[in-house]
């Protein structure tokens, strides 16, 4: 039980985050003319961002599951994310044969994930004859074939390049889990349900909050499943393949089947992430599902969080999104905040035409890509183990074990 103290704490913090966020943003104090609540609004991720962090974090974790643990860099992982997403959208529009549009969301999610599992096994059967760079390239090749196909597949919509959205008029996907449907919890930011005065506590939950919890539960279950596999004998063999495949083979493991298994499972969870994305956003497009840069974002998150740490990928993507949020062009971004807060004198100061205002417009407003790239390069050069990996090296074990040790010491 002690070893799970940290896990429980993390889940608790996440569960309380909407309330924490609401409280902090609402702080009505001004220090030196700066409204503190606005400051929190700039630097804390919003709930809608957190939903994104959850489902895309699941995708990043699934990428880490195969690439971080077996050492085979899957450069086409976005394909599985895309399969999950497109399956849910097409099923919701009644475009999947046999499956009615009114089918429960959970069924669609599961079927999409199973489809991705099958595709992953087929792709893996071909790809795992290769290693290293060649493996990365052949997976990229497969994913690009799928990407080009989906971009031009007129069945998806009249203009497949722009993707498609769910066409039906229902309020949201039915979840389809016994007892949960009765609660009326639905995924979908725009049309999902909101709760007022939950269980008589006087707490109100907005639609984004409901989605946050609904998506969060699915992501948590998937994380626990992957965590379980990683710590099972199966996961030990995966690590053995990463460390020394020849030796693993010499010991008597059929590494090919282990790699296939890992790839299939990873594809399954990647598709769950994609399905959640589609259910929540209710629309998909080739560039946010099958694109090479979707894989790149997962890679980025995994490297920053720690390669081969599973949970690290989620934290890595949280970091990614916080930075993205701060540097976004939206009203809660740093650029608008600075333009609104700084005095005209400060804004117009500078050398010649290049004023502070100009600097903010050019280098702060919507420039997250640049800083993420720099951070990524710095991590590759100086922090190759990532945030969580480095922390584990320092603590000499996982954070959970270290905290448990500490707790035991205090109890004595």
């Amino acid at each position, binding site marked *: 039980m002690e070893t799970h103290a940290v896990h429980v704490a993390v889940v608790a913090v996440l569960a309380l985050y909407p309330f924490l966020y609401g409280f902090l943003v609402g702080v009505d104090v001004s220090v030196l003319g700066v409204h503190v609540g606005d400051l929190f609004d700039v630097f804390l991720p919003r709930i809608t961002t957190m939903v994104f962090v959850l489902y895309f974090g699941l995708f990043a974790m699934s990428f880490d599951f195969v690439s971080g643990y077996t*050492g085979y*860099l899957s450069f086409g992982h976005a394909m599985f994310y895309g399969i999950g997403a497109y399956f849910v959208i097409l099923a919701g529009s009644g475009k999947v044969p046999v499956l009615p549009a009114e089918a429960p969301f959970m069924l669609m999610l599961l079927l999409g994930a199973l489809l991705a599992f099958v595709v992953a096994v087929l792709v893996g059967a*071909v790809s795992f*004859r*290769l290693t*290293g*760079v*060649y493996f*990365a*390239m*052949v997976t*990229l*090749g*497969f994913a*690009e*074939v799928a990407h*080009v*196909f989906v*971009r*031009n597949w007129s069945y998806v919509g009249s203009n497949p390049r722009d993707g498609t959205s769910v066409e039906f008029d229902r309020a949201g996907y039915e979840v389809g889990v016994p007892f949960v449907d009765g609660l009326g919890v639905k995924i979908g930011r725009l049309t999902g349900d909101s709760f007022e005065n939950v269980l008589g506590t006087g707490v109100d939950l907005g639609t984004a909050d409901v989605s946050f919890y609904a998506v969060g539960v699915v992501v948590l279950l998937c994380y626990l499943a992957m965590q379980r596999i990683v710590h099972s004998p199966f996961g030990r063999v995966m690590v053995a393949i990463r460390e020394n495949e020849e030796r693993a083979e010499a010991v008597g493991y059929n590494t090919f089947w282990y790699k296939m298994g890992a790839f299939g499972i990873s594809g399954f969870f990647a598709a769950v992430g994609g399905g959640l994305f589609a259910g929540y956003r209710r629309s998909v497009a080739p560039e946010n599902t099958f694109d*090479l*840069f979707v894989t*790149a974002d997962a*890679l*980025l998150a995994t*490297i920053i969080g720690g390669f081969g740490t599973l949970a690290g990928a989620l934290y890595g993507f949280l970091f990614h999104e916080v930075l993205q949020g701060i540097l976004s062009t939206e009203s809660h971004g740093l650029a608008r905040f600075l333009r609104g807060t700084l005095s005209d004198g400060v804004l117009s100061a500078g050398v010649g035409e290049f004023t502070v205002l100009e600097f903010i417009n*050019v*280098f702060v407003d919507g*420039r997250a*890509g*640049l800083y*993420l*790239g*720099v951070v*990524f*390069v710095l991590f*590759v*050069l100086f922090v*190759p183990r990532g945030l969580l990996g480095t922390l584990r090296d320092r603590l000499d074990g996982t954070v959970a074990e270290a905290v448990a040790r500490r707790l035991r010491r205090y109890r004595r």
Partner: protein
Amino acid sequence: MTGLVLVDAAVPLFAPVGITLDALSKAALYVVIASGLSLIFGLMGVLNFAHGSLTMVGAYLGGAVMVAFVSGASGDAARLLVFFVAVAVVFAALTALGAAIERTLIRPIYDREPLFQILLTFGLVLVIDELARIVVELRGLRPQTEWQAAIGTAPDFLSNRYGILGTPTRGLYLFEALVGLLVVAAIFLFLTRTRYGLYIRAGSEDAEMTQALGIDVRRAFTVVFGVGSGLAGLAGVLLMWDPRFGASVPLGVEALLIGFIVVIIGGLGSFKGTVVAGVLVGFVDALMTWLFINYVDFPGLPELVMFLVLVVVLVVRPKGLFGVAEVGGH
């Protein structure tokens, strides 16, 4: 009306000529894009993800040189001259940039797994692309998707269409095929006649032994990474004039994927393979483009089939057509 019917009737008759002309120009472009990537991988075993972004930088830089100088010199000969000046400028600038990148960023991680070099160059893609976007927006080089100003600097005799054996083609496509041939010849001479060419050939056979023979492989890495980057830039200048491509930020990914397809099909570490694969992919692309225009209603056909060829080649011959057993090493 009768003219239209005549053209339609002529399509099957002259199709082979048209497809071949289209294929040759594409093959030349693809070989030029992939050659730098191939050289770098051949010697160092580093798959340079930033190659496409360097191509994109070359396209903008070359376009900027053209636009800046062409306004003064409007004659066709002068424009062509400025083009070669642009090639020289871009090649020099990107060779310097590539060498600097190798010295400062890639050198420190040679002793780590090859994975980290892929990751690092991938990070460079994000940085270079975003920096390019900043410059493009600041300097008003709009529209960002396709920089028409640069395309417009091509001499008239290249923009015109000519009839060859009854098939219309652009002068530019013939010019591209010619430049591609020149680049291949130059690289071949570089590989067989120069000291660094010798190092590359030796290094791709056995890097450790090359080092043991007293050759400064580290220095060769810097030179080769520089030359490879310069070639990426050169490809960019060539693409800048082509209406099928043009200078744009997304050009980076486009060029990168083409480069990967060609280099992997040819076999990593083999320049001969790169040339053969470039021609092969050029023909596949041209044939599929013709099929799409005339018979198959699927716009993504050429791209789709190119990736399928990549997958099939890798499945049948895991090291590519001319790949050497083990490439690079540090």
